[in-house]
């Protein structure tokens, strides 16, 4: 079988094609001089993306488990966090952390604010994904573990979360792509990300069609890379073939 016919490889090829097309477009339309600027912007976008993902991936399971198994105070704290960050827009959250917190004597670097706000935003959605996946693991798994005298936390760590993890990978793929798209908001708190650079170059060169086409291709390429990563994880995580009855 041709290696390129594997769907994962096609994703990689498509992503690289996007980047190549963006570069070709830049070179062909006299925007070559702007490429270093764009690359710097991509660097900022990627930094916010990775930082935000890390925050979300840590925060989401913690919030989900607090909501599921915490005592009432902890549970309400988790619910408060989840509902606040799901119920308000990411932009408002960015502005709040950036412009309001200083009034309370807390001034953070824009990059820190960007990573924290977007990470917490996606983390709130992620918490619901984690919670749903944990609840989707059949009750029989808990009972089997209990019959083996495993504690609740052992059951969670060794039996339930590894299965929930497989169930939630596709949803996480969506969330991380949402995160990528939301990174374009950080230009509004003075960060020079890809979108910000594009606007700048557009103002200087007035090559609107070319500039924003390049940016579109780059974002598409990045999101294809995310999808590729998640597919890879999914493939590694899926044990056996089908799931047996009742398991």
């Amino acid at each position: 079988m041709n290696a390129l016919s594997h769907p994962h490889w096609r994703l990689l090829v498509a992503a690289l094609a996007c980047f190549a097309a963006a570069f070709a477009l830049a070179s062909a339309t006299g925007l070559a001089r702007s490429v270093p600027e764009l690359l710097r912007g991509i660097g900022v976008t990627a930094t916010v993306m990775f930082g935000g993902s890390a925050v979300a991936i840590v925060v989401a399971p913690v919030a989900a488990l607090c909501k599921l198994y915490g005592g009432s105070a902890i549970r309400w704290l988790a619910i408060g966090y989840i509902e606040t960050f799901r119920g308000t827009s990411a932009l408002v959250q960015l502005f709040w952390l950036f412009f309001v917190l200083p009034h309370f004597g807390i001034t953070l670097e824009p990059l820190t604010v960007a990573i924290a706000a977007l990470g917490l935003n996606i983390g709130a959605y992620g918490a619901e994904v984690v919670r749903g996946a944990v609840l989707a693991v059949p009750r029989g798994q808990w009972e089997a573990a209990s019959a083996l005298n495993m504690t609740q936390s052992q059951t969670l760590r060794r039996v339930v979360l590894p299965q929930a993890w497989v169930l939630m990978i596709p949803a996480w793929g969506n969330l991380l792509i949402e995160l990528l798209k939301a990174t374009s908001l950080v230009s509004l708190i003075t960060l020079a990300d890809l979108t910000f650079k594009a606007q700048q170059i557009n103002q200087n060169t007035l090559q609107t069609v070319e500039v924003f086409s390049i940016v579109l291709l780059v974002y598409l390429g990045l999101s294809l890379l995310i999808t590729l990563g998640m597919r890879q994880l999914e493939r590694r995580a899926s044990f056996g073939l089908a799931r047996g009855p009742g398991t």
Partner: protein
Amino acid sequence: MVHFDHVTKRYGSLTVLDGLDLRIAPNEKVAIIGPSGSGKTTVLRALMTLDRIDDGVIWVDGEPLTHMRRGDGLVRADGKHLRRMRSKIGMVFQHFNLFPHMTALKNCMEALVRVLGLPVEEARQRAGELLAMVGLADKQDEYPARLSGGQQQRVAIARALALRPKIMLFDEVTSALDPELCAEVLGVIRELGRAHQLTMLMVTHQMGFAREFADRVCFFDSGRIAEQGPAREFFDAPRGERTQRFLRAVMDAG
């Protein structure tokens, strides 16, 4: 060994176990039969401490299962007591409930490592011996999804035995299996009963197996034991009219 002392279990207004009294001697093999919804599974789940009982006391080895002595009375047991009592009991489920992300061997090792704290090598060896005992030495590295139903259930039996319980509970362990796979699982159970000192409590629809394997049969109806007796006697000469009707219906269906 096990004594259900006037045990009651309710779900809302539905009384599932209705003042149940049941004594099981060490090493005794008891088959529980009865119509759907009569509380058979509930008895096993209560004994496995998967469900709370609302009234009465379950005694295991002379100790209250879900209660502790406090002064003259009994209070609800703490986690430590429950864990100690649970270690005497193993359960096999109708739908196997194997851990799908672990190989057959890992399924059997998990509790040995996590609960007993055995070194991995020792756990691996003990799990391997158990799998060999249920005839699956060659399948130890397979994931459950790649095993037949009968093989999965045999892994589940090996897993339940890993902690060396004194009491084994089987809840319709062959109901999800094709007849030919059924036989291999029943064969394993038969062998277990022969070779080990185990008290066994099994819910089953396999009347032939119950008759031949069990010391005693309990016929459940509406959360009570409607009739019980030595297996042969019970099947050859059921006394109650309800029992006769049930047995006739099962024979007709089978």
